């Protein structure tokens, strides 16, 4: 008798606690995960989920309004969630594993090959999506084994921003910078004039590789051979700048944002940074300009493409693809793409948007840079790229922090990369 009272009281208490927490669902309930679980199927309405890496945009922003409008234009409701970009890959993989993938996902372009490899994305042929309007060099990042797994929403790339006031004071003409020798000479002059030379990001993440690639490719090196003499030359260039004080020690830990903050103090002549800073540079408070990153022997160095792709994860119910395709087409239509790219400070991925953007004098150099840019996962590197990139940024870190010489660093990186990708 005593026992049953005890257990009854106990179970009541536990039940009460459970009810209390579940009762929070009245005010706490959020969106149900994924499209596979939603009520209606395909055509006549229903909810379509979209995931993107733009948590800085909330529901009132132009981006989300555009998503919803694309939805209503096609007779469906769009539910959007913004995630931190570094997190989105795992989320996408977990969701694919559990069958709760969103209908549309926007994700950083090097990740497309990983997701495609995992069998988590539907290719554009199955979707019936027309990819002819997209620039080839930009589309390349999403091509795996001859199939395309998404389309770019826009692209960005790197160039050299310069502070005209600092350059004038040092007696440097930006137009004279055409190759590595002239650039280093300019940095020397700036340093002699008491200002700082250049800032960039060499952090031990994909961002660091992203920033290193224009120099790496600009020396003629290839990602499949990190330890070629050209590759070592690129790394030595950076190491040299650090040793001579033309670049600050903090580049080893800088993200592109903190590197930009250094440039924004007005003490630096150059900053290697991207299209997305165009909005910020206008607030800089000094006269600025942009020059393309020079290649070692002259000419413009190929820069890597940043920017997201729009892709359609695999769904268990493939009648959903028809509407998904319509949503993607809506997002990437010339008008909408132009609006989105303007908000994100990206360059368009189609000829239509690019020619529109070229009319703007400020954007013109960027459009040209993007046209000469290259996808990181192109050349069918696909899922080999992340493995090579990791070794590359490790080598950069080791060389810049002084624990290895550039030659040794690249040699070790190549050995590790070769065994990882074999």
């Amino acid at each position, binding site marked *: 008798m*005593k026992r049953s*009272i*005890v257990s009854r*009281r*106990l179970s009541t*208490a*536990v039940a009460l*606690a459970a009810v*209390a*927490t*579940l009762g*929070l*669902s009245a*005010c*706490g*309930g*959020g*969106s*149900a*995960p994924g499209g596979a679980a939603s009520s209606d199927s395909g055509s006549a309405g229903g909810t379509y989920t979209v995931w993107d*890496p*733009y*948590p*800085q945009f*909330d529901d009132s922003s132009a981006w989300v309004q555009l998503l919803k409008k694309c939805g209503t234009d096609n007779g469906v409701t769009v539910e959007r*969630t913004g*995630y*931190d*970009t570094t*997190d989105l890959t795992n*989320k996408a993989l*977990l969701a694919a*594993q*559990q069958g*709760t993938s969103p209908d549309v996902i926007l994700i*950083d372009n090097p990740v497309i090959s990983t997701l495609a490899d995992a069998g988590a994305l539907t290719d554009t042929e199955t979707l019936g999506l027309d990819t002819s309007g997209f620039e080839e060099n930009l589309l390349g990042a999403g091509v795996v084994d001859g199939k395309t797994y998404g389309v770019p929403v826009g692209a*960005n790339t790197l160039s050299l921003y310069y502070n005209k006031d600092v350059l004038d004071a040092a007696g440097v003409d930006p137009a004279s910078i055409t190759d590595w020798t002239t650039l280093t000479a300019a940095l020397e002059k700036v340093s002699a004039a008491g200002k700082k030379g250049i800032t960039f990001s060499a952090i031990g993440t994909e961002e660091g590789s992203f920033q290193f690639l224009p120099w790496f490719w600009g020396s003629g090196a290839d990602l499949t051979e990190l330890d070629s003499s050209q590759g070592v030359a690129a790394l030595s260039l950076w190491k040299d700048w650090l040793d001579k004080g033309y670049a600050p020690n903090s580049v080893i830990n800088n*993200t*592109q*944002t*903190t590197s930009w*903050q*250094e440039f*924004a*103090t*007005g*003490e630096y002549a150059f900053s290697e940074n*991207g299209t*997305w*800073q165009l909005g*910020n540079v206008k*607030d*800089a*408070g000094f006269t600025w300009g942009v020059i393309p990153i020079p290649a070692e022997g002259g000419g413009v160095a190929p820069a890597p493409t*940043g920017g*997201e792709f729009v892709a359609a994860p695999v769904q268990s119910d493939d009648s959903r693809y028809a509407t998904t395709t319509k949503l993607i087409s809506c997002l990437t239509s010339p008008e909408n793409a132009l609006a989105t790219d303007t908000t994100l400070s990206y360059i368009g991925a189609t000829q239509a948007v690019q020619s529109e953007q070229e009319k703007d004098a400020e954007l013109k150099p960027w459009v040209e840079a993007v046209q000469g840019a290259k996808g990181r996962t192109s050349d069918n590197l696909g899922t080999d790229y992340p493995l090579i990139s990791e070794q590359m940024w490790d080598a950069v870190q080791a060389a810049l922090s002084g624990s290895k010489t550039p030659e040794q660093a690249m040699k070790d990186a190549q050995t590790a990369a070769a065994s990882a990708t074999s």
Partner: protein
Amino acid sequence: MSSARTTALTPAARRGTKTALGLVLTAIMLFPVYWMVNVSFTKTSDMRRTPPSLIPLDGTLDGYRAVLRDQLPYLGTSLLVGVATVALTLVLAAPAGFALAKLRPRGGGALSFALLVAQMIPGIIMAIGFYAAFIKLGVLNTLPGLVLADSTIAVPFGVLIYTAFMSGIPDELMAAARVDGASTWRTFVSVVLPVSRNATVTVSLFAFLWAWSDFIFASTLASGSQLQPITMGIYRYIGNNNQEWGSIMATAVVASVPAAVLLVLAQRYVAAGVTAGAVKD
């Protein structure tokens, strides 16, 4: 006598020196917090200035404006999640602590060890492990789910605290209740729990603070929810290419204020000794 041997200062002066020393130590400890506040008022163009400015004389309120505009719902959610986590933790930990301390089930040692092992699992493994389970339970991207996850941070520790405190309760107290005809449950609720008030406050404090600053569970299990805690709210300022550090630090400052108030209030209770309320021999 001994007191005269140690120092020549009067007791009041000695206490004054101690207060001064205390202030200095606190200032050193809180310097990074001061720095955080400093950055929250700094303009973007000054953020990487060399040398850094110790006082943001040429400051900006932009960060705080952003916070007041965006972050209040997140703060409210964090508060809600924190309180709910405390409730759940107490409901689970107190009876278990009582069992281990007083009722001595056979194999209780194994249970204690299991609770210790439970704390060894890194958060990210827990989060990934929960993902599938939460989908099946239907609590992914919901606040109750987040509360469940956050409680896993505090429950094992809570049981440990309760067991420790409750072991110190004299058996005579319980025997007295039993003589009066109370059941074990009754004894627990009416005698043991009130006496363990300080343990309850300690566990609540830890549970609240851990839930308040949790990021890994919020990010993995609740980032699709409509209401999110403040640790995710900060991500509004961490875009895919740009981070607004002034706003991030301002958010942290504003987020710390209610928790700091709670801390100061709760400290008084955690401060009151274990001896309070117990029967002394």
